[in-house]
């Protein structure tokens, strides 16, 4: 890993994202700073339209900030060419969405090996890494099954295995439990938590408090602004800047 010890794997520094301009300007995110360290799972909560998805797209290098910096494994996304960014994404970042994560015509092992093969790793080595990654999320026995032969929870585990295959250490999850019942959803969160405890880093977008609670920190977004976080307990003075009473 190129990240030095203690350095955040993902860092957003005063990031703003504005869509459109002039009268139709929309501020999707305003001045958001966020770090996800090695071994850390951070959850983002907020009502729909609060900027959660924009945040995740920026964090994964799928979108670029209007102002501010996004650093993935220490590298500023803004300084990268289109090609360089694609490579960074392929090597460092994995996504897990609510559903339709896996390619239906590929087996679990082939799905998990895909990012490595796209990156030029030989088939044999890619498969070995994929099997290792499937094992780490507890679905080694599903390696040769196709997505339609797996349950929703198993598919999400495979998606996590793919997100963290090989040298990849950052998983960005957008409502990964949205399509699952509460028991299965919880087992998927346990897997995500366990992978982070083993050294991966995760950014999890969810509207479910019980799932967000698996994170080390929960960040609350509203109207594109971070309004609170469960990190350090808030200082009393911070809370008292709005006068109550008459």
């Amino acid at each position, binding site marked *: 890993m190129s990240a030095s010890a203690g350095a955040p794997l993902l860092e957003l520094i005063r990031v703003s994202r504005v869509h459109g301009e002039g009268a139709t300007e929309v501020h999707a995110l305003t001045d958001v700073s966020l770090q996800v360290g090695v071994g850390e799972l951070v959850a983002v*909560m907020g*009502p729909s339209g609060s900027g959660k998805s924009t945040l995740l797209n920026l964090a994964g290098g799928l979108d670029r900030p209007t102002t501010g910096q996004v650093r993935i494994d220490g590298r500023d996304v803004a300084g990268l060419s289109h090609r360089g960014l694609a490579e960074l994404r392929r090597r460092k970042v994995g996504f897990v969405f609510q559903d339709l994560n896996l390619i239906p015509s590929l087996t679990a092992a082939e799905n998990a090996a895909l990012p490595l093969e796209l990156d030029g790793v030989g088939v044999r080595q890619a498969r070995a890494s994929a099997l290792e990654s499937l094992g780490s999320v507890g679905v080694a026995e599903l390696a040769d099954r196709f997505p339609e032969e797996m349950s929703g929870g198993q598919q999400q585990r495979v998606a996590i295995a793919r997100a963290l295959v090989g040298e990849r250490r950052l998983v960005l999850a957008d409502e990964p439990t949205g399509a699952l019942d509460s028991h299965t959803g*919880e*087992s998927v969160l*346990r897997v995500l*938590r366990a992978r982070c405890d083993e050294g991966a880093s995760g950014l999890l977008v969810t509207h*479910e*408090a*019980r799932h*967000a*609670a*698996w*994170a080390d920190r*929960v960040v*609350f977004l509203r109207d594109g602004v971070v*309004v*609170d*976080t*469960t990190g350090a*307990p*808030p200082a*009393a003075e911070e*809370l*008292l800047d*709005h*006068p*109550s*009473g*008459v």
Partner: protein
Amino acid sequence: MSIRQGLLALLAQEPMYGARLRSEFEDRTGGTWPLNVGQVYTTLTRLERDGLVEVSGRPDAEGRIAYRLTDAGRAEVTRWWSTPVDRDSTPRDELAIKLALAVTVPGVDVQRVVQTQRTATLRHLQDLTRLKSRNDPAGVPRHELAWQLVLENLVYAAEGEVRWLDHVEASLARAAVGRREETRQRDVREADRGDGADASAEGHPGTSEGGREAHGIPATSRRRRR
């Protein structure tokens, strides 16, 4: 419990005497937590003893004594609004009472109250989840299972509280939009008046309950009695 805090919050609005405090408290919390006048006066006496309230002026014509906040009382109200409900020492109802008062007492940043509580509840939920994560749900012994279920009960309660707070926030946002719309329609009606339109006959919904609706509480739920 929160009678003490509730009375202080009401007195932050203006000085009141005991019977009025009682009716204001019941009115604003939908009559869900009825008080008797004796409770109110006992609480006022203690608050006075603790230096949080003081008698305001002379008794009125009917001999009723109004109370007002002292500086210490005002500080206590500010502290109550700005800190989350203490889960260890109070029943959960305090949160509902707190929100009911927050949306009716002027000058309270309700959104902040909601967010402060939500953060605290999420932190509580994180603690519970950490306890939960020590056990694998598969193959736990029976007494472990019981403990897991108790933990789950607490998780569900905390989760429900967060969902309710989300709902409060969304309702406040909707009410704010409604107020803006009402203002806009009134402006339109006033502009129309010059054309001879009968503005009063339009019977705008919500205006009959006036300020109550404006605070985002539907009149029907406020009248609920046990």
